[in-house]
């Protein structure tokens, strides 16, 4: 750490001489400095991502015995097994459905909340802080608390439902409810983040178009629909990208709340592959599946980012 700092401190002296040769403070001539400044980041990321990905690719073409010992190369076997595995596709479906439901609700709720909360004022500030608490908590802790509350017989939620004369709900033991419970937990935890992003975006909007709309006698709804949303589009997409990338790899909540059950109703890809690798030492299947997922994630994200870039430049 300290050595790195020292290395950087030396950079300027080298460049002082450079600078004086180029009369104007030419910004494009600092290629060397630019490279040096970028190198540490790229190095760390390479160590932590390129090597592991390479290793994962290697594993995905290897075969292992039941004790998890390497026994040779498997060619495309692992991929074939993954592609023809019903379990794999069902986990993909579950992950995508989960992401769509959770992120969709978060954007909707976050937008409405931001509309209401965009007022200024001291009280609003504290209220905002209260509302964003969930996103600052560890997903693991959040899952533990919800596990306690959603317990069918001892949980407070069923206790309250019964208090107002409703029947108990088997939150984590029934496939559809367990899936929805996970979605609700995700909404609870991450709507605040979407809210915060959109709120920041709204506060940065120029005032003129709204005044113009006002003069033209547009209704409030019309103003939101035709003035605000188009201008906010890049922000909405940012929120969408960030949340989608995270939701696609949901693990912690599944680990604590349902362990993938009941049946396979909440088995997300991350959880399925974790279990295949860690519990069943089926490394080939797990890594092949994960690489497929990685490709899917990158495709979805880069499509969303393209969308973002084009909508930004359109603005």
């Amino acid at each position, binding site marked *: 750490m300290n050595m790195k700092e020292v290395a950087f401190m030396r950079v300027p002296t080298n460049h002082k001489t450079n600078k004086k040769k180029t009369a104007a403070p030419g910004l494009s001539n600092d290629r060397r400095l*630019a490279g040096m400044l970028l190198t540490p980041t790229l190095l760390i990321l390479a160590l932590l*991502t390129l090597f592991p*990905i390479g290793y*994962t690719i290697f594993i995905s073409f290897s075969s292992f015995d039941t004790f998890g010992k390497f026994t040779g190369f498997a060619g495309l076997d692992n991929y074939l097994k993954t592609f023809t595995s019903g379990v794999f596709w069902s986990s993909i479906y579950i992950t995508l459905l989960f992401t769509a439901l959770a992120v969709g609700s978060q954007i909707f709720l976050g937008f409405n909340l931001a509309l209401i909360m965009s007022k200024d004022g001291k009280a609003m500030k504290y209220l905002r802080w209260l509302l964003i608490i969930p996103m600052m908590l560890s997903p693991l802790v959040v899952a533990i608390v919800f596990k306690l509350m959603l317990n069918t017989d001892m949980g407070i939620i069923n206790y309250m439902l019964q208090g107002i004369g409703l029947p108990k709900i088997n939150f984590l033991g029934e496939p559809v409810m367990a899936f929805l419970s996970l979605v609700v937990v995700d909404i609870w935890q991450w709507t605040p983040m979407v809210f915060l992003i959109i709120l920041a975006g709204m*506060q940065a909007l120029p005032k003129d178009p709204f005044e113009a709309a006002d003069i033209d006698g547009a209704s409030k709804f019309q103003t939101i629909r035709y003035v*605000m949303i188009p201008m906010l589009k890049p922000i909405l997409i940012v929120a969408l990208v960030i949340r989608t990338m995270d939701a696609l790899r949901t*693990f912690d909540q599944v680990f604590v709340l349902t362990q993938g059950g009941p049946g396979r109703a909440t088995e997300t890809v991350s959880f399925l592959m974790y279990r295949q690798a860690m519990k069943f030492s089926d490394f080939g299947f797990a890594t092949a599946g994960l690489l497929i997922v990685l490709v899917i994630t990158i495709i979805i994200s880069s499509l969303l980012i393209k969308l973002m870039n084009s909508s930004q430049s359109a603005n």
Partner: protein
Amino acid sequence: MAVLTQKPGGWRLKVLRASFLTSTIIFVLFPLYWMIITSFKTDRELFADKQTFFPKNFTWQHYFDPIEGIFSANNPFVGFFVNSTIVAFASTLLCLTIGSFSAYSLARFKMRGKRNERISFLILTARMLPPIVIVVPLYLIMQQLGLLNTLWAMLIVYTGFNLPFVVWMLKAFFEEIPESLEESAMIDGSSRFMAFIKIVLPLAMPGLVATSIFTVILTWNEFLFAMFLLNNTDVMTLPAGISTFITQYKTNWGALTAAATMSILPVLIFSFMVQKHLVKGMTMGAVKG
């Protein structure tokens, strides 16, 4: 910037808005409230058929009981807390140092063709990786480096995985700062690098603060890597450590909620102190990013 609230809304709208807001606040706060009061209930009350919304017999036993409490000498909780603190602050510092250099480079130096964009995207790709993909190879790397079961491993991993986020956030902040300020400093004989240190960094202070808040929180909360790379009780961080409290036969909900409460307390206090930076940070970082 209340762009939409200048108009007088009807009372119906006001009622609707107030009730939406109230129910949201209850929805948000109730789980926290429930976690906190559960940690103050006696075991008997916790397991009782009739649930109580406030502890009947308020007890500190889950915190300070000499045998069962999380602060007792034989409970590893305090160690988890210390480890998390060390890792969170150290990796944030490292991340910010490295990240600010790279962000500056991406924000200011135009490279040939679309290389800037490409490198930015490449950096972001690292954030898309599901951690589960790389955790097994990381285990091997750390083992080779002799860093398995040490906080150093976590420091490296968290620095790496927070970097993309830090670079993107800071890049946006640096782009906000007019380049002419550095240019005038450089005309006065300052080097490019010193101009960055002396002029740009102080101006970007709110951004640095906001970014570090997010980095600290992300690190504080991370579970998956810690679960795999830390296999000794004395080096565990909070989420990984707390998860070991979930026992096979009986879950001690009292101690578990007490530990959970203590683990979120610093985050709550910290975020309250710097809350104005949170919204500002988002305005600059995420929105412009």
